[in-house]
C-alpha cells in the first residue's frame, strides 16, 4: 500500500534539487549524466508502479519506451507533425502497447508473466529491427526537441535540457504517487497481495491489470520522448530486452515498491557506471555481481533497506515504551 512519508518527500526533493545543482554547476558531461539519470529514473518509477505495487514484473519496459520514441520519430519525421502532438502520440502509443500486453497476459502469473512480457518486448524489437521503413538497425535521425522559445527557454542548450528532464521526472513522480493513492492504486496493491480474492470481491482483475500496465506504459512513454529528444537519434537497441532488465536492476538496487527508491537507484546506477568505466571496460560484470549481491542481501534495495531499518527502530521504540508503561 502506497504512502508518501515525510522521509520520502525529503529524499525526493534532495535528489531533484541535487540534480539541478549538479547540472547548473557542472560541465557539459555532468549535464549529460543528469539527463541519463532522469530518463532512467522515470523508467524505474514506471516499472515500480507495475512491479512494486502491482506485482507485475515486466521485462518489456524498454520496448514500451522504444515504442514511444519510435512513434514520436515517425509522426514528426515521416509525417512532419509538430513536436508536441508527436510526443502526445508517442506517449499514447506506449500506453496502448502496455495495455495490450497487460490484457493478453492478464491470466498469466509469476514466471509466465515475466516470460510473456519478455517475448512481447522482443516482438516489438524484432519488428522495428527488420523494418526498412524505420531504418532497421541503423535507426532514425533528424529528430527535434520542443520549441519552448515562447517561454524564453532554449532546449537546445544542455543546461536547459537537463533541467527540463528533471522537471519531467518530478512530474512523473507526482503522477505515479497520485494514482497510487487513488482507488485504482489501492486495488492494485490488493491485486498484488491476493488476485483470486480480489476477483471474488467482484473486481475484473484482467482489466485492472491491463489498465495498470497501460498507466505504467504511459509513464515509460514520457521517458521514450525524452530519450529521443536527448540524442536526436533512435535505434532498435532501445527496445532490446536487456534494457528492460537494466531498468529492473535499477528498481531493485533502489528499493522495489518504494517509488523514491527507484530514483535513488537510477542516481547510483549511472554514477557507478561512469566511475567503473574509467577503470575497466567490464562494466557489465560489475553490474551483474552488484545485482547478485543485492538480491542475496535481502532484495530490499538501498532505500528499501533504510526504510526497513527505520520501521524496525520505530517498532522497537514502541515496544520499549509499552514495556515502560507496564512497569
Amino acid at each position, binding site marked *: 500500500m502506497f504512502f508518501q512519508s515525510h522521509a520520502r518527500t525529503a529524499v525526493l526533493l534532495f535528489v531533484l534539487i541535487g540534480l539541478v545543482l549538479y547540472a547548473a554547476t557542472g560541465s557539459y558531461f555532468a549535464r549529460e549524466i543528469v539527463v541519463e539519470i532522469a530518463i532512467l529514473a522515470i523508467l524505474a518509477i514506471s516499472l515500480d508502479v507495475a512491479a512494486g505495487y502491482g506485482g507485475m514484473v515486466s521485462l518489456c519496459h524498454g520496448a514500451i519506451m522504444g515504442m514511444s520514441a519510435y512513434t514520436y520519430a515517425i509522426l514528426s519525421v515521416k509525417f512532419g507533425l509538430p513536436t508536441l502532438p508527436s510526443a502526445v502520440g508517442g506517449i499514447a502509443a506506449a500506453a496502448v502497447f502496455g495495455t495490450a500486453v497487460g490484457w493478453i497476459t492478464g491470466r498469466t502469473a509469476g514466471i509466465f508473466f515475466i516470460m510473456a512480457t519478455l517475448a512481447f518486448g522482443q516482438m516489438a524489437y524484432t519488428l522495428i529491427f527488420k523494418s526498412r521503413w524505420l531504418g532497421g538497425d541503423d535507426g532514425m535521425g533528424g529528430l527535434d526537441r520542443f520549441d519552448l522559445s515562447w517561454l524564453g527557454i532554449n532546449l537546445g542548450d544542455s543546461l536547459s535540457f537537463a533541467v527540463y528532464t528533471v522537471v519531467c521526472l518530478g512530474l512523473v513522480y507526482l503522477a505515479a504517487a497520485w494514482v497510487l493513492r*487513488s*482507488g*485504482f492504486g*489501492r486495488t492494485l*496493491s490488493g491485486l498484488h497481495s*491476493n488476485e*483470486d480474492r480480489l476477483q471474488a*470481491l*467482484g*473486481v475484473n482483475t484482467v482489466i485492472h491489470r491491463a489498465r495498470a500496465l497501460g498507466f505504467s506504459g504511459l509513464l515509460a512513454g514520457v521517458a521514450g520522448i525524452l530519450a529521443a529528444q536527448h540524442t536526436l537519434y533512435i535505434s532498435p537497441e532501445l527496445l532490446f530486452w536487456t534494457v528492460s532488465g537494466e531498468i529492473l536492476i535499477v528498481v531493485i538496487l533502489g528499493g522495489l515498491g518504494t517509488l523514491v527508491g527507484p530514483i535513488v537507484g537510477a542516481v547510483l546506477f549511472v554514477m557507478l557506471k561512469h566511475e567503473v568505466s574509467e577503470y575497466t571496460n567490464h562494466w557489465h560484470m560489475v553490474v551483474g555481481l552488484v545485482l547478485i549481491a543485492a538480491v542475496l542481501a535481502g532484495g530490499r534495495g538501498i532505500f528499501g533497506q533504510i526504510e526497513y531499518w527505520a520501521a524496525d527502530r520505530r517498532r522497537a521504540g514502541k515496544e520499549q515504551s509499552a514495556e515502560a508503561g507496564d512497569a
Partner: protein
Amino acid sequence: MLEVKNLSKAFGGIRVTRDVSFKVEPGERRVILGPNGAGKTTLFNLLVGALKPSGGDILLDNESIVGLSVSQRARRGLSRSYQKNNLFEDLTVRENLALAAASAQGKFAWMSRDSFRDKSVLETVEEVAEHVALADHLDMQVRSASYGSRRQLEVGLALATKPRVLLMDEPTSGVGPSMIDGFHRLLQGLPKELTVLIIEHDMDLAFDVADRITVLNFGEVVFEGTSGETRGNPIVREIYLGEGLEDA
C-alpha cells in the same frame, strides 16, 4: 432468491455433482450438510463460478448466472467466504475491509480519489468490523493476526461487499469450541434480510443455525427439510451414524 436446477458436474467420467436442485428463499439460513467426500466443495465452486457445470442451471432472482464469471457474480451480490483463509496478507485489517467495500461500491478504479478515504467505504469498514468483532484490531497486520481473527476477517471481507447472498464454505473449520460460540453470535448478528448458505459437515452446527437443511451424499441431494425434520430422518442418521460406526 437463489435457485439451483438439476446441476451436474463431471470430472473425466466421474460425476461429482448429480442433478442437484434446491431453492433458497430471501433471508433464509440454509445449510448444505454432508459427510466428507459428498461433493460439497464442488457444489460450492459451481455456485460461486470457480467451476463451470456440465449441466443444469443456477438462478439468482430468477436470472441465470451460470454463464457469469466469479467477479461478475460477485457484482450481482453473491459473496463468498473461504474454508481456508484467503486474505490480503500484506495489508492491515482495515485495508482488507476497505478493499472489499471499495470493490463492491465500484470505487476500485477511481483514478483521482482515494477510495480508502471515501465516506461510505469508511462507514462500511466500521460497521463490518463491529459485526465480526474486529473493531479494536483495525490497524493490525493480517500477517501477524491470530487464527481466530483471521477467520473473523474472512467473513468480514465477504460482508463488506454488502452481499445479498452470502456463501460460506465450512466457516468454523479448524477453530475451537469457544470460537464456534462466537461464530453463532456472529451469524445471529447478521442482517435478517441477508440470505446465507453455509456448506458444513458438522451436524450439530447445522441443526443450530439452519432454517432448512439440504443433505448431500455422493453428489446427490438425499434429503431436504427443517432442522427438526432432518434430525429425526433415518436416511440422515444412517449417513452419519454409518460413517461414525465405521470410524469406531
